[in-house]
């Protein structure tokens, strides 16, 4: 069975600084997708960034980038130039390559951003 582990329950960062959130996963599949979702207090899950396992190039979306290490089964999220609005729960998620398959989430990391 596939599992996703986030070992950092809480992280904090100063505004304008950089922070990295960690995620490891376990799977026997060779093709899959990985995601980072943001969940603010409003509870709505918002997709931050996605990575296809067959792509060697790390995904980037503006201030958000990932470090995808397929052999190590590691998928970290780097947030640059942190903003107060980045404060939220961040969930790492895995999905098998079947397009309609379910998401498997980690336990989340609460990110606090200090002015």
């Amino acid at each position, binding site marked *: 069975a596939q599992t996703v582990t986030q070992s950092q329950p809480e992280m904090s960062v100063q505004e304008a600084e950089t922070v990295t959130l960690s995620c490891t996963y376990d799977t026997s599949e060779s093709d899959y997708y990985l995601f980072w979702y943001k969940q603010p207090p409003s*509870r709505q899950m918002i997709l931050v960034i*996605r990575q296809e396992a067959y792509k060697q190039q790390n995904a980037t979306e503006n201030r958000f980038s990932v470090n995808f290490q397929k052999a190590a089964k590691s998928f970290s999220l780097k947030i640059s130039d942190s903003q107060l609005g980045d404060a939220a729960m961040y969930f790492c998620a895995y999905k098998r390559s079947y*397009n309609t398959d379910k998401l498997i989430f*980690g336990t989340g990391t609460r990110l606090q951003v200090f002015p």
Partner: protein
Amino acid sequence: EAGVAQSPRYKIIEKRQSVAFWCNPISGHATLYWYQQILGQGPKLLIQFQNNGVVDDSQLPKDRFSAERLKGVDSTLKIQPAKLEDSAVYLCASLSRDTSYEQYFGPGTRLTVT
């Protein structure tokens, strides 16, 4: 386009009572998911629909939970009777086939069972 709608946003019930949640997915999204998110955990799939058929309900406690998706659009999730451990946020999501198969989430329903 309008997002995934869910109601109610909050519900408080006593144990052994019944409760129902409603989800209206984004128009045209054939695949719909119900996730349960217990406090301090990530969401876990309860049931997945493709149109009005069930694709995966392996994690649904079928002795107390039921779900349906009539006409392949709106969906309802019911709990009867509720237990204390059912306290959680219930998230509905629908799948777009136009944007890399992204799942779009609703705002969730927070259920408290006392």
